[in-house]
Every structure is written in C-alpha cells, then in structure tokens.
C-alpha cells in the first residue's frame, strides 16, 4: 500500500530533515489489514535515523506528538487500532518546543 507521511514540528530532523515521505509498505502477514501500530513500527525501523525516543515511547508515539490520519485526529479513529487504506496521508507533528 502507498502512503504519504509528513513530519512536522521538528520531527523531520529525525528523518534526515525530509518533511514528506512517499512510501510503499507491504505487510508480510496474510491479512490485508494494516494498522497504525504496524505503520509506527515500520516508521521507527525504516525512517527514523536518530533519537527514536523523540518519536516513540513503547508501542505508540511519544506524548506530545500529534497524529493526523487524512487530516483527522487519530484519537477519533482508534489511535493504534486505526486501520489504514491505500493512499492515506498520515501526519506526525511534535508540540514539544517553545511557543
């Protein structure tokens, strides 16, 4: 499945300063279902080049990181259980800096 991933609020610094990544993810399991949990794990392994603790804490994103799936707060779609579809746009924005 194809996804557009966007990193903002300073998170782009963890991915070689690239804000927008167009990626192709194929799961090795039988089901066609890809959840945010799967995506996060994939991102941590493949896109985060340094300081992963700034992006994730355990299985989920670090507190203070906003996640939008197709412009909608992921808390409305089930957070880690959110199921993703082809061509979805996922945005990660850090709020952890001065205002």
């Amino acid at each position, binding site marked *: 499945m194809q996804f557009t991933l966007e990193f903002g*609020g*300073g998170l782009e610094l963890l991915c070689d300063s690239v804000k927008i990544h167009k990626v192709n993810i194929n799961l090795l399991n039988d089901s066609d279902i890809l959840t945010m949990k799967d995506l996060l794990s994939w991102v941590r392994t493949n896109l985060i080049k340094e300081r992963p603790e700034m992006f994730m804490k355990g299985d989920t994103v670090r507190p203070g990181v906003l996640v*939008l799936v197709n412009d909608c707060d992921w808390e409305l779609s089930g957070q880690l259980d959110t199921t993703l579809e082809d061509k979805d746009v996922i945005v990660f*924005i850090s*709020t952890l800096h001065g*205002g």
Partner: protein
Amino acid sequence: MEAGEEKSKKAGGECFYEVFEEEIHQVIVGNRLFKFGERVAIGASGGKDSSVLAYVLSELNRRHSYGLDLFLLSIDEGITGYRDDSLETVKRNEVQYGLPLQIVSYKDLYGWTMDEIVKMIGLKNNCTFCGVFRRQALDRGAALLKVDKLVTGHNADDIAETVVLNILRGDIARLSRCTSITTGEDGPIPRCKPFKYTYEKEIVMYAYFKKLDYFSTECIYSPNAYRGFACEFINDLERLRPRAILDIIKSGEDFRIATTTKMPEQGTCERCGYISSQKWCKACVLLEGLNRGLPKMGIGRPRGNVNGDYKDIKARSTAKTIESKQCGSLDF
C-alpha cells in the same frame, strides 16, 4: 472537554478553525481582555503559540472590530542557532500579517547575551536568568512601543505546568498569580493570555490546517530546565485524562493561601525601580552576580547578602515552622 476531538465533534458542519477562532473571541470578550482603541504588543518569538496568536488576534481584531493597534514585540536573548533563526520567522510574520515589529535584545539591555551568560554560569540555572531577563525585557520593549497592554501566547498546557512547578517548589506567591488571565494591572504594563484555556494540541492543529509559518525547535539550553519534568508529567497526564489540564488550572485558580503564611510584599527595586518584593529586583541581583563574576548570586537560598538586610536573614534561619518561612525561600 477533550481538546481537539470534542471540538471537531461539536463542530458538525463547521470546520475546526471556525470553532477555534470563535472560542478565542469568547475568551477575549468574556474576560474583558481589551478596551477599544488600546495599543497592544504581542510577545512574538516566532514559535507556534505566538505565531498563531498574532494571526488569530489580527483576524479577530478585524472581524469583530476590537479597534486595537497591534504590534509584534520580539526579544533577542542572543542564543545562536535558536533565536537568530526564530527571529527570521517573526520578521516574516511582520510582513505576512502587516504588524510593525520591535526587537529588544539582552545585549542592549543588560550587556550580556544568553550565550555569554551560559559560558559564565555553566548549563544549570540558565532558564532562571533568561526568564527573569525576558520578563523585564518585554516590559521595556512595551514601554518603547508605548503600548497599553502586552499579550502572550501562553496556552493551557503552559499554565498547568506552571501550577505544578510552583507546587513542586513551594512558591506560594507565584502560585496565587500564575493562573490569572490578566496580570500586572498594578505594574508598568498589564499582560494577558487569551490562550489560557486553549490546549497546545489545538494550537498546533490550527497552525497546521491554516499552514501558518512558525519556527519549531527546542531552545538549545532547555533540556536542563526543571520545567521539563512538569512538561513531561503534563503530557503523560493528558494522554490518560485530557481534562486534567483544565482541572489543574481550575485547582490553581481556587487555591486560597492560609492566613498564617508569610507572603512577600511588593515594592520597587532600589537599583532600577522595577517592581520587586526584595530591595533589589531579581534581574539586578543576577546582573550584579554576572558583572562581579559571582554566577551563583541570586540562585537558590541566599547565603551572602546583597540586600544588606541582616535582620531578614536571621529571622529566616530561626523560623520554627515551614509556614512561617518566607515564600520562595525553600531550596532544593
């Protein structure tokens, strides 16, 4: 109120940012933050909160005819690799929003940049210096602009953190003031915080949807700040129960100080005339320390005596109970 989510749900047909703007308007009107025709300086750092504040305030000023004369006021602490970059953002904001910009620097005001200060005092207590100096710098800048009021982008998360921080330090004087939406009405320039009830998350979402230009890197000296603990705590708390942030603010508002607690009296600084509860204001004490090569002066419990008040020191050290100790003198 679960910040963004409920707002989106409430919104129904309306979009998120219409609701956001309307709520800020209600906070401004409901708390009578401004008077028609006032000159108002927006404390602008180039960061998310102040950029959104500048945008929303100028938009609401226009839409609802507040009649305000708005300015951007920026403080240059002299932190290379951080402030010089964020100032570029404010200069862009000046053009984008059409608001005149005034920059005030620590170097001009105090003769020291933060970089020079850190070189002298090391990496601890940086924020103490910077915070104290910035507060005064904003007042000086506001006086230069001849404004009636200062407005800052402090959001609900910030205020909840401050409440927690003041409890952790036993700073009752600050605790009693930090939740007020308007402060300093009896001082040189009153200041208010229209984002007092706005979650940090909502501000970031607003900036994202409106594609607002802001600078988003942590101050290079902030990892050593004590506030970091309060910040992490608040973020973890928000995850468990988002309403906790507003509830902490409410608790802060509802604190009543026991009458047996000794509170500092407000007077003026002998050296510079600024508002102070001691003979010298904190900025003067810190500056004296820097200029005399005594970086610890003004930090923690006073041992030496810049204020020349021996009676005071004796009284403090023989105080029998914690309640009778002067506010802010508990040391960690």
